[in-house]
């Protein structure tokens, strides 16, 4: 038994390095996609201290809007632009209706408000778009399809889907862009101020409402990108919402407020999950992907209660 757990999986890895590379690649891609989802959470958390529970449903909603518009005859690029507009309207509405009345409430109240928002968007989305899974319009948007096979020495092949490569590139670009935005621009600085202390930010003249609307809009864009990428790999349906739960372990590892942390956390979870599932999963009947991420995060937390990149919480009396 000990042999099965501690020796055999590694032997398997060495015996078939092409398979190992494939698994690593899959893990990498999954990690990037998790990171994209986590990014949306980080944005809103960074700027308002709120854990936006509705991020998952926003991903679905954005994707559904895009596909829905296209189904009704709107050309792909126009649909993209219109969807961005829709996310903008959503951001403005959320800020006006949910965030503004709750501006001074403790974080837990805001969290619950986003839970309420989720419920609402789920119902609304199903009402407008119907509940069946839809196909993402990846080709029409100009995203690459097909795949390339790489030879790995004499041992075998590793197959890389082009869409995955595109996803990785887009994710990295987004992270870089957002990182620059937060650190170098005036708006970014205002966002960080707001994240720290709402009232203090107000007292120096930062317009909370504007900042929040901007942030929710940015999160909406990230949600749209995430929706497109996820949807291109598997269809767009409300099941995608569950994927958002995976964001929590990613955020814990990467820190709730760190943009590069989202990528690192995503990668760790992506790799960990895939390798765990393929090499150790069969020992217990498989399907451990559903909970492995949480256990990984839990183990990390036990050693570092503030996450890998989180700030050390110094409690004062």
């Amino acid at each position: 038994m000990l042999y099965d757990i501690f020796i055999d999986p590694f032997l398997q890895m060495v015996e078939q390095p092409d398979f190992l590379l494939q698994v690593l690649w899959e893990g990498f891609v999954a990690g990037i996609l998790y990171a994209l989802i986590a990014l949306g959470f980080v944005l809103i958390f960074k700027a308002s201290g709120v854990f936006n529970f509705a991020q998952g449903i926003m991903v679905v909603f954005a994707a559904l809007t895009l596909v829905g518009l296209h189904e009704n005859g709107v050309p792909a690029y126009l649909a993209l632009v219109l969807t961005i507009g829709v996310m903008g309207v959503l951001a403005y509405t959320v800020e006006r209706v949910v965030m503004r009345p709750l501006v001074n409430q403790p974080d837990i109240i805001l969290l619950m408000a986003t839970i309420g928002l989720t419920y609402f968007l789920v119902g609304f989305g199903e009402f407008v778009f119907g509940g069946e899974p839809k196909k993402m319009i990846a080709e029409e948007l100009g995203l690459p399809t097909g795949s390339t096979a790489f030879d790995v020495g004499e041992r075998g092949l590793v197959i890389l889907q082009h869409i995955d490569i595109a996803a990785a590139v887009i994710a990295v670009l987004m992270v870089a862009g957002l990182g620059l935005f937060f650190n170098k621009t005036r708006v970014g600085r205002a966002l960080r101020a707001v994240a720290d202390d709402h009232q203090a930010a107000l007292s120096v003249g930062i317009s909370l409402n504007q900042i929040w609307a901007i942030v929710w809009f940015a999160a909406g864009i990230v949600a749209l990108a995430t929706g497109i990428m996820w949807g291109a790999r598997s269809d767009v349906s409300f099941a995608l919402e569950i994927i958002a739960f995976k964001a929590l372990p990613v955020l814990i590892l990467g820190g709730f407020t760190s943009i590069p942390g989202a990528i690192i956390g995503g990668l760790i979870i992506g790799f960990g999950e895939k390798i765990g599932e393929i090499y150790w999963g069969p020992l217990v009947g498989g399907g451990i992907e559903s909970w492995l991420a949480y256990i990984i995060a839990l183990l990390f937390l036990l050693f570092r209660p503030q996450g890998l990149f989180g700030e050390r919480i110094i409690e004062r009396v």
Partner: protein
Amino acid sequence: MLYREAGQFKTSYESDQALFPLRQDRIGLAVIFLTAFVVIPLAANDFFPTSIMIPFLVFALAAIGLNVLTGYAGQLSLGTGAFRGVGAYSAYKLTSIFPDANLIVVLLASGLFSAAIGVLFGLPSLRIKGLYLAVTTLAAQFFLEWCFIRIPWLYNYNASGAIEVQQREMFGIIVTGAAAAPLTQYFFALGIVVLLTWLVSNVIRGRIGREWMMIRDMDIAAELIGVRPLTAKLSAFAVSSYLCGVAGAMMVFFWLGAAEPSAFAISLSFQVLFMAILGGLGSLIGSFMGAAFIWILPVLLRSVLPSLGLEVGAETVEHLTSMIIGGLIIFFLIAEPHGLARLWRLAKEKLRVWPFPYG
């Protein structure tokens, strides 16, 4: 003027610390008991108890369980669905292994298994706080769900992977299974819920309940007063999981009759969380109100909408219900973050001076 404590003097600390010190509250409680134990059984047909009241009782109990952990002890939990599953499967195994055992004993014992698992997953709470703790309960939720599928022993190697409740008798009356009378099941559920609610309320008003609230409000100060955080937190996990376990067992035995692992999915955890939040965290009455609200509202909508002349399919009702509930959650949070229980207390305050505007 109805709701005044004027004229009701307490001459001992015992009477001051009673559960319902005011006469008006006691009358209200009597009315509720009368309705529950007498009016409903007499007035309702078969449909009402099984489809409305029993699930309401089940959810209320689960909401109380969640309230103990999140409302009183301040530890966020997203795993109540899975803990309910542990209770359900434990009860199923117990009654399979001991078919002649008293069902009430089986149900109450099944909670102990949830409590044990709850304590296990609560251990990290000493190191981890707040939102991070949610990951522990999420881990519990998904891991236990996986166990329900992957451990065939749990469902007696049944081909369908689901558990089905057999007919069981107690004192000669058939209690579970297809042949059981809905009213019988209703009374049993009601009895169990009333008993457990009373026990929990005792714990809450005593030392342990106070320690939970101390941990919730400021755990550092609590530690400096001499409260052991780990003991307090673990006791909260234990009690909370126990209640959820019994609720889960009742859910399968008295209401659904059968269950698949998906019956204990994460959506269930959230449903109970909404009930606790809407009802008011940290309030027993709130748990009942929240459960009533979230459970009964869809039923009302389903019956009201067609009568308004709108022909709506069942699915649309679901969508609209989601939207309305979501909207109501946001509305309540803006208007009264402390939930229905606080609104109720405010109403009682108003009753103190009504019909005069000021006291």
